[in-house]
């Protein structure tokens, strides 16, 4: 297991995936508070901006900065969480490296678990950098917020992204091509997005986790979304087990 995890982490590093996640989330972390602070001035400076637009645009506040930061990290993080693991299993099955590895005395569960743990490490680093950058810029441009709230936001975002990463990993295990895996991962994400609009179902979906983190980061007293939290903590290992069940039956 340790060897498989080492291989996955080295692959994340050498294939520049870790760098890409860190760079994208880092830039998005900076852009959140920056756009909140300067959007109005930027719009006003553009020639031909309709009169009265300034009145429509929200006032730059610390709440807006944290909201922008959260949205940026959640949206771009989601795309990365779907893209990064998309080829991790199906690609290895196609290239033959999965067969070479699994002809050795390692379990197929460990093979998948290593991939999930590497994803966790990659996104923990990415979210950490994004939030670190966002926290610093929010502090410099607006006000310094208690770091504890940002820690909650980080955990919420990480769980949310890991859930979609697990979904993509499952698609990569089930499908026979990267394209099909991509289609399945994006399709399921769309279905979950639609289901989330139904209030009764929405409370159980991990999509509520970034919002909870955002409220905590701005110091608002909000109720912990236990249903979404427990659902994410159950679904992530559940998706891993589903992938294992499928991989056990597959021929390599």
């Amino acid at each position, binding site marked *: 297991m340790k060897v498989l995890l080492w291989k996955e982490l*080295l692959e994340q590093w050498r294939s520049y995936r870790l760098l890409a996640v860190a760079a994208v989330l880092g830039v998005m972390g900076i852009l959140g508070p920056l756009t909140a602070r300067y959007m109005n001035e930027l719009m006003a400076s553009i020639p031909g901006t309709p009169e009265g637009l300034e009145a429509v645009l929200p006032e730059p506040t610390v709440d807006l900065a944290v909201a922008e930061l959260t949205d940026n990290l959640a949206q771009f993080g989601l795309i990365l969480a779907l893209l990064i693991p998309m080829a991790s299993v199906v690609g290895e099955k196609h290239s033959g490296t999965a067969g070479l590895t699994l002809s050795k005395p390692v379990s197929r569960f460990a093979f998948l678990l290593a991939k999930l743990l590497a994803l966790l490490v990659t996104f923990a680093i990415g979210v950490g950098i994004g939030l670190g950058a966002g926290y610093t810029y929010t502090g410099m441009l607006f006000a310094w917020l208690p770091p504890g709230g940002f820690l909650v936001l980080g955990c919420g975002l990480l769980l949310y992204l890991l859930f979609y990463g697990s979904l993509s990993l499952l698609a990569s295990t089930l499908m026979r091509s990267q394209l099909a895996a991509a289609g399945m991962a994006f399709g399921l994400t769309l279905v979950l997005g639609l289901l989330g609009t139904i209030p009764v179902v929405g409370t159980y979906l991990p999509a509520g986790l970034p919002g909870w983190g955002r409220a905590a980061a701005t110091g608002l007293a909000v109720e912990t979304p236990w249903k979404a939290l427990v659902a994410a903590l159950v679904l992530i290992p559940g998706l891993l087990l589903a992938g294992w069940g499928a991989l056990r039956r597959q021929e390599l």
Partner: protein
Amino acid sequence: MTAIRVEGLRKEFHRIVALDGLSFEVASGTVFGFLGPNGAGKTTTLRILAGLARPSAGQAWVEGHPVGPESPSRQALGYLPEEPRFYPWMTATEFLRDYIAGLFGLPASKARQRTTELLELVGLKDVARRRVAGFSRGMRQRLGLAQALMNEPRVLLLDEPVSALDPAGRRDMLLLIEALRSKAAVLMSTHILDDVERICDRVGIVNHGRMVAVEERQALLDRYATPWLEIEFRSEAAKVKAWAETLRPVAGVADVSTREAQVRVRLEGTDGSDQQVLGLAVASGMSVESFQHARPTLEDVFLRLVGTGGEVRP
């Protein structure tokens, strides 16, 4: 002691039957040549033994353990696929020392020692720190063999192990496989009949997923090889050809072919018809340059059993 046992193995891919009741055994300390035309089921058999595919029916054992995706038999197994693939971003040393040795749970000192030994053995010492992405097909096959030997396997499965190597590399690899005989049971699938003749103790010929012959190499040659005569004249090719045609009705002659002034005569048996053909050659009026019994080859056996169209000829 039996290292590999295969019993009634059947494998269907949708409606295509790849293996149809295949059975054989490989004893420890022997090299077993697994021969067959393309699509005969050799690679499928090796993949089942390596735990990468499941049989539709039947069973196989490696060192007494039933094979399968999570089988403990993999601890004793070395497997070289036909086209071994690697992580292109790893160096050869990282792949062997840190990855493969780690998968077998070797301690760090042992992993280092085995990696040095194996890189030397397969001739990759000079490129040990180079990334695999830049390796040629032959270098990949050598690295593939090195990874298959990492755990000092008691059972070694080699799928076309010399197909990508140049003549010198092929010779080295065959010597290496031959040297492994005392340490492991080797099951080697190949198309190159010369290699099988050179190093295999036993030979199994598979066709359409069935074992059509499995025997000691020499016993197989004795049993199935057709007696051949090669006669070379010092004469014009046209005259030689005309004389060769007169042999066709002769009792005991199965087939006749000519090339320039050389005649090849396939006999139906060893019942004295060779003496009759010799007499006819001498009586032909042409000068006989040479007359010899051709050494039966595994190719003769293979072609007789499998046929050029893949049909079994009993």
